[in-house]
């Protein structure tokens, strides 16, 4: 044992040597080794309770802590060191306490007693140490326990103790605002201090008290405003004091704190504001601003002027000072000026408008902090009168701005342009500019909105598609530009070629049909194109195939080329489209009609209310389970494009009617999608549909009959019409997850059933949210327990169902250790998530929730079934209940 102690001691290095050793390390591994060795020695020394080295150990631990290594084992050493009698031990102990611990550690409570003793110590330096530690890390409990001690120290004869006590109280009242009233009168006394430190601390304490207590605010406003004004006056007119002088100003810190407190007192009180007008004017005019200290005072003064009750003369002065700041060469000063102007807008927007040009220059500054501030400020300054020149400036700057700034800038420009989009041509022009300059930074919803707008502006469609075509010639690398252009060419291709709807000042453009197809082909073959662009291009090609007969063969070739695409989405689409071109000439032109006008109002309201389905904003393929992630959001607009299910879409009944049963009959999987919409129509029909939907039956069924029974509320018409959802068209457009019925019709042609399986799951009938709606059931009920199941399905995975189970206690006893278990047949997989609780309150006063995920591998053929067992304890007695659930809604 003795050997061991000696051993441990002999390896003790001095602090200096340890630091040197650590600094000498060449690699992180080496450093870790040194630290590990030191820590081992320190631990050994701690466990020996060795007092001679405690000081050194603590110092070492602090250094090690600063490097980021764990040092919790040293926390108790701090407490021991604080508890020892000598000043040196206490000093290092308190330092360690502040560095190694924070207010959230339980250990901290143990120091309360030592702190209490030290606050009453006869040595003022020890009192100072305790106050400092308390002020830096005390918790709410400690604040409560020690507040009386601190309050007493306001009476201390030593001003250094008084100032420390005041700042310590700042923390105390922040932790426990109720204590503020105890400190009110001692704080007011401090405001009469001559000692700067004590005065500053007193002013600070008053400021913070005003923030937490209205009572204190009233109190200080009444009692201290005059005194503070006088104190500030004294400061402003004080002669040179070397001790406090900073670049010619006597104690700028005190100035600033006095101004800040005056601001709080003057805000919302005309009398108090009036009282300080003179001195504020004096500070604003007399302060030297060639040094940072003076500027800091002026800055504070301007803020006070802007915050207190109205005095227009002073405000003009203040805004002028900011204008001067704004043209200063020092970046810091410009930054604070922008900051201030932002707050000044609320007070006097006109005055800020005067500096618009200068602010615009700041948007182009090389300093990211300044640019960001300036851009936000400009955004606030935009109004009807200046929006055009400002937008032009911003877009011009977009061309040369840094890459990392483009995102912010684009976002702001887009929202300005959208906000002032009354003039359609201007809006479209500006958006196209932004798309061409920074299309990669434009968010999806922005260009979706643009498409909706274009679709509504029938007189501008020709112009838009030509402008887009031109834009594509020069900037072909902006993803969202390509997407918008491709969509427009698909829709308005003939306007591009025939120069339809020329505007007055527009130059004519010669584009042949094959040029237009070139663009689409380029977009689809561009290797950096994302899947949305490619899919959009495919749809656009399909649309053009009927309108540009000369290119029909070429388009069909391109589509065929993609039948082998490795991207499932594209492959499927090309196969489907190819079928349309090959086999369904007679319905093709109807199918490929131009989109009906999209409902702008409902799109905008959806966007504003943020009710876009989460999938729309989620990044593509975010969910790893998606078999076909791209179907989700990116496919959305594409789906919409083909949509002809609008009520007002002209659908001649003669053209396509005959084919429909065929189209539908081929698809067994489109059926659940149709039925999903109408579970309320009666589950029997659903049942029937589902049971029919087996491969064996698929071709024999007269689906149109089934459909008409399903939609028994719709008047009879052509099957195509009947297919259209009874809901108005708009929701589909605005919910990008929706795919069209047409897609489902086509599913039948795809060679692999599994694929169409997945496809049909994005059917609009699952309309935009989480999938089909199934009624919830009471899965189990006994006299003591009720279990309810509610169901939801992810549209992309029909086999699996998410069940939310809710357990309710019907008895008057509390159930503890509640466990729910379930068993399923082999063809089903079950996954249980943890329950929300294992205690179930009595008499239905609460419930436990638990979610289950079941995957039915024979979905569509076999129903869900489940055996359940519930175990719980009543007064520590075990209870077991069992049951079987067979009443699952069909289709799960």
């Amino acid at each position, binding site marked *: 044992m003795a050997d061991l102690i000696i051993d441990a001691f002999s390896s003790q290095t001095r602090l200096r040597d340890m630091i040197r050793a650590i600094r000498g390390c060449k690699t992180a591994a080496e450093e870790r080794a040194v630290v590990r060795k030191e820590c081992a020695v320190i631990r050994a020394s701690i466990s020996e309770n060795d007092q001679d080295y405690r000081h050194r150990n603590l110092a070492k631990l602090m250094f090690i802590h600063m490097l980021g290594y764990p040092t919790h084992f040293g926390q108790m050493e701090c407490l021991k060191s604080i508890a020892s009698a000598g000043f040196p031990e206490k000093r290092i102990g308190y330092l360690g306490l502040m560095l190694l611990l924070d207010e959230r550690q339980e250990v901290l409570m143990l120091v309360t007693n030592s702190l209490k003793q030290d606050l009453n110590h006869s040595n003022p330096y020890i009192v100072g140490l305790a106050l400092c530690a308390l*002020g830096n890390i005390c918790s709410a409990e400690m604040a409560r326990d020690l507040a009386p001690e601190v309050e007493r120290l306001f009476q201390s004869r030593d001003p*250094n103790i008084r100032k420390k006590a005041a700042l310590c109280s700042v*923390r105390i009242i922040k932790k426990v605002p109720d204590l503020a009233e105890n400190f009110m009168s001692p704080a007011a006394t401090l405001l009469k201090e001559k000692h700067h*430190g004590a005065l500053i*601390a007193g002013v600070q304490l008053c400021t913070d008290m005003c923030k937490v207590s209205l009572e204190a605010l009233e109190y200080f406003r009444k009692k201290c405003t005059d005194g503070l004004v006088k104190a500030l006056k004294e400061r402003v007119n004080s002669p040179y004091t070397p001790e406090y002088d900073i670049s010619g100003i006597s104690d700028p810190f005190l100035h600033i704190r006095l101004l800040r407190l005056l601001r709080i007192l003057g805000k919302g009180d005309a009398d108090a504001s009036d009282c300080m007008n003179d001195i504020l004017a004096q500070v604003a005019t007399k302060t030297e601003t060639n040094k*940072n200290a003076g500027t800091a005072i002026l800055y504070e003064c301007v803020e006070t002027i802007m915050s207190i009750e109205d005095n227009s003369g002073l405000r003009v002065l203040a805004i002028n000072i900011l204008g001067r700041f704004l043209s200063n060469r020092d970046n*810091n000063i410009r930054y604070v000026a922008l900051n201030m102007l932002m707050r000044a807008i609320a007070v006097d927007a006109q005055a800020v408008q005067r500096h618009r040009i200068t602010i615009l220059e700041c948007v182009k500054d090389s300093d990211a902090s300044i640019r960001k501030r300036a851009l936000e400020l400009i955004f606030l300054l935009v109004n009807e009168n200046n929006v055009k020149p400002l937008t032009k400036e911003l877009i011009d700057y977009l061309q040369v701005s840094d890459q990392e700034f483009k995102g912010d800038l684009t976002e702001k420009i887009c929202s300005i342009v959208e906000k002032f989009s009354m003039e359609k041509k201007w809006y479209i022009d500006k958006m196209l500019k932004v798309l061409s300059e920074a299309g990669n930074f434009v968010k999806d919803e922005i260009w979706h909105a643009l498409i909706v707008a274009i679709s509504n502006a029938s007189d501008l469609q020709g112009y838009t598609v030509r402008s887009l075509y031109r834009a594509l010639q020069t900037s072909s690398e902006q993803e969202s530009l390509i997407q918008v252009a491709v969509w427009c060419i698909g829709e308005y291709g003939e306007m591009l070629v025939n120069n339809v709807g020329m505007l007055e000042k527009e130059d004519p453009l010669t584009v042949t049909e094959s040029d237009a197809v070139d663009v689409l082909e380029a977009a689809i073959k561009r290797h950096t194109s994302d899947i949305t662009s490619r899919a959009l291009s495919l749809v656009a090609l399909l649309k053009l195939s009927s309108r540009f007969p000369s290119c029909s063969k070429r388009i069909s070739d391109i589509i065929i080329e993609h039948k082998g695409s490795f991207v499932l989405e594209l492959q499927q689409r090309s196969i489907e489209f190819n079928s349309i071109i090959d086999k369904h000439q007679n319905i093709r032109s109807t199918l490929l009609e131009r989109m009906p006008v999209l409902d702008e109002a409902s799109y905008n309201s959806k966007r504003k209310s943020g009710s876009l389905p989460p999938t729309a904003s989620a990044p593509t393929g975010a969910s790893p389970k998606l078999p076909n992630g791209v179907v989700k959001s990116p496919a959305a607009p594409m789906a919409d494009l083909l949509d002809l299910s609008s009520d007002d879409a002209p659908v001649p009944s003669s053209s396509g009617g005959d084919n429909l049963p065929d189209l539908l009959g081929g698809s067994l999987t489109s059926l659940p999608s149709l039925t999903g919409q109408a579970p309320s129509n009666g589950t029997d029909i659903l049942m029937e549909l589902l049971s029919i939907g087996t491969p064996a039956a698929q071709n024999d069924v007269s689906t149109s009959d089934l459909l008409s029974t399903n939609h028994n509320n719709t008047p009879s018409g052509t099957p195509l019409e009947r297919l259209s959802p009874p809901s108005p068209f708009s929701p589909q457009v605005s919910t990008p997850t929706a795919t069209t019925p047409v897609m489902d019709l086509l599913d039948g042609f795809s060679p692999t059933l599994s694929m169409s399986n997945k496809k049909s799951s994005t059917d609009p009938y699952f309309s935009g949210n989480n999938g089909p709606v199934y009624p919830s059931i009471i899965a189990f009920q006994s006299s003591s327990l009720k279990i309810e199941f509610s169901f939801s399905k992810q549209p992309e995975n029909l086999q699996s169902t998410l069940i939310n189970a809710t357990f309710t206690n019907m008895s008057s006893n509390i159930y503890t250790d509640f466990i729910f278990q379930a068993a399923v047949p082999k063809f089903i997989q079950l996954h249980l998530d943890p329950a929300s609780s294992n205690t179930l309150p009595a008499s239905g006063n609460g419930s436990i929730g638990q979610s289950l995920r079941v995957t039915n591998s024979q979905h569509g053929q076999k129903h869900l079934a489940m055996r359940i067992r519930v175990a719980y304890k009543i007064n520590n007695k075990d209870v077991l209940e069992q049951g079987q659930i067979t009443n699952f809604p069909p289709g799960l």
Partner: protein
Amino acid sequence: MIHFVLLISRQGKVRLTKWYSPYTQKERTKVIRELSGVILTRGPKLCNFVEWRGYKVVYKRYASLYFCMCIDQEDNELEVLEIIHHFVEILDRYFGSVCELDLIFNFHKAYYILDEILIAGELQETSKKIVARLIAAQDSLVETAKEEASSISNIIAQATK
């Protein structure tokens, strides 16, 4: 209020950290890493303020060291620059033209000085002279205690010879 004070060397090594708001050890490491990434890469002509997580970080470089203080949005950035300078001047007087090595080997003294300038994230003393006097008085208390201890151990050593 100042939420924390950081001293970071140009190589990204931490020389002093003082936290006035509660941050767990993990958060502290993250904050330091994040901020040194931002601050050390900023050009010399840019302004001394960085907006960060809803706060503002005011920093200033002195030789190889960056002094950073994190403050609230509504605080006076220019004043914080003066506080940093105030701290640096006091360090300078105490160590006699301070350099990074002084702060590495006497890091605890730097902390003692900081504790005489700031409490609870607020400025405590604006007179450099008073800070210097208070530190000197406490240093001498430590010295006296040390001397006493060594003289006692000398006496014991001689008595047990």
